[in-house]
């Protein structure tokens, strides 16, 4: 499929079983087959889809190096369809990362290690995981892409760096819990996500593919609501809240082309100024946020 043609994405909004990697791998394989049979060119699964979210002291049991048979099986399944999946990655140094992999043609094309690990409120990721260090755009058969994992997207610099790196579309696997149920339409946490995704899509002139899990873990509920947002800030497709679904969305790269001509924010970006200013701010000074 040449760069520029529209392509069908499958959003694998599933409910992982906590700590049961074998069952989750099997589930991923089933959904990959289903997505392929439905004509999708890409299927995207949520953050920590192979392990569940609150793994806590299960880390040692569920962590897998990139060459582990469980990981290899999913990479091998990326045959005729590209696959994005996420798990606890164990590095050669035995550090543990929240990793999302982009596999195509039975090979790992890109690995993103979650950079921002929420450790506040109900979140405790910094206690268990090591932090990733890079936001690198990478080439796919659908053009250049960028990947963030959940909390990464709550830092505006993440899509910014991916955008400058040439990403024309962005992937965002998530495990985001539902919080606050007093709004008329969406959970409080979901409302924030929706605003964020719409703004990013427009600001960076990209398609955003957001895939959030569902199900409960010890009373904490993940809201789902996966979807694709176009560079115009519109929802191309949207999966239901709270329920498992394999949702499909057409992504049209022409929309990126039009958006970037109509509103050439990327063209006008002064990253030389940004760099200079960051250098200036990086000088140690009392009372300033530490880089």
């Amino acid at each position, binding site marked *: 499929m040449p760069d520029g043609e529209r392509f069908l994405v499958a959003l694998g909004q599933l409910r992982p079983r906590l700590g049961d990697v074998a069952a989750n791998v099997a589930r991923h394989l089933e959904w990959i087959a289903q997505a392929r049979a439905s004509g999708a060119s890409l299927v995207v699964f949520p953050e920590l889809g192979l392990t569940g979210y609150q793994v806590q002291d299960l880390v040692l049991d569920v962590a897998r190096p990139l060459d582990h048979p469980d990981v290899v099986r999913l990479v091998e399944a990326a045959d005729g369809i590209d696959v994005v999946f996420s798990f606890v990655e164990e590095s050669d140094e035995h550090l543990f990362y929240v990793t999302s992999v982009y596999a195509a043609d039975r090979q790992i094309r890109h690995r993103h290690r979650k950079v921002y690990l929420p450790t506040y409120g109900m979140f405790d990721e910094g206690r268990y995981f090591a932090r990733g260090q890079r936001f690198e755009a990478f080439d796919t058969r659908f053009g250049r892409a960028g990947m963030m994992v959940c909390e990464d997207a709550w830092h505006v610099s993440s899509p910014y760096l991916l955008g400058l790196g040439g990403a024309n579309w962005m992937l965002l696997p998530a495990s985001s819990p*539902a*919080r*606050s149920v007093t709004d008329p339409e969406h959970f409080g946490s979901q409302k924030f996500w929706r605003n964020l995704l719409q703004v990013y899509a427009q600001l960076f002139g990209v398609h955003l593919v957001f895939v959030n899990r569902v199900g409960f873990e010890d009373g*904490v*509920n993940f809201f789902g609501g996966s979807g694709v947002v176009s560079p115009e800030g519109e929802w191309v497709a949207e999966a239901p809240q709270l329920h498992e679904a394999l949702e499909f969305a057409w992504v049209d790269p022409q929309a990126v082309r039009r958006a970037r001509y109509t509103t050439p924010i990327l063209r006008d970006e002064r990253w030389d100024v940004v760099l200079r200013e960051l250098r200036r701010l990086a000088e140690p000074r009392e009372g300033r946020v530490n880089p």
Partner: protein
Amino acid sequence: MNPDIQARLCLNERLTVEILVEFIREEVRKAGFEKVIFGLSGGIDSALVAYLAVRALGRDGVHAVMMPYRTSSPASLRDAQTVVDGLAIPHTIVPITAAVDAYFATVDAALAAQATPLRRGNRMARERMCTLFDLSAHFGALVLGTSNKTELLLGYGTQFGDLASALNPIGDLYKTQVRQLARWLGVPASILNKPPSADLWEDQTDEKELGFTYDEADEVLYQLVDLRRSAAELVQAGADERLVRAIVRRVQNNQYKRRTPVIAKLSSRTVGVDFRYLRDWGR
């Protein structure tokens, strides 16, 4: 038991007792109490708690409660009496037979079915819990727990029954360590040497019911929990695979007993999830 594991489980008794005595003193007083109350079964765990509590708060600071059921072994009550006499501590005997039998007379009739030994045993454990918390209010004494680490990990206890307490001084001691410490503190030999039993029905022993000995359990649990070794590693090193699997399954399946009830999260601050304060809050 593997001598290396046995050596690692071996406590510095003096230091351990010093910490546990301070623990009882400080946590009891911080909660606004001067006294503690606990069930004394005649077994080694509650005997150890009695000896520790007396060291911490003096004999006037403790109150032992014996709560026999009609099928309880007479030896149990005798052993409990030995502890009470040896320590010269105040105590109350509250038989639970009438309450438990009245309950099952009513419920067995309503369900037209006879309760299983397990249900009866759990009911007894909870009757004892109810009694202790009632007497806690009467005596102004905080309830001490008597579940050890082996029982907590194996889930060998009744939820909201013997597992319920305000403070548990021995919850981080494996059964092997309970024995070591009890011996060191002078718990009577008849208690040290008898087979452990929940004494919920006649001839019940823990080890018969569990299907393995406490020594076997501690050897496996210590490696799984404290050393973070995997089940596969233990088996590779020569442990009995069936034993290891059985223990791992018990530990996993009983995690719920070690946690407070699961709350459905709705708001942005949920009790137990992101509403986080120590129990010491304001103390």
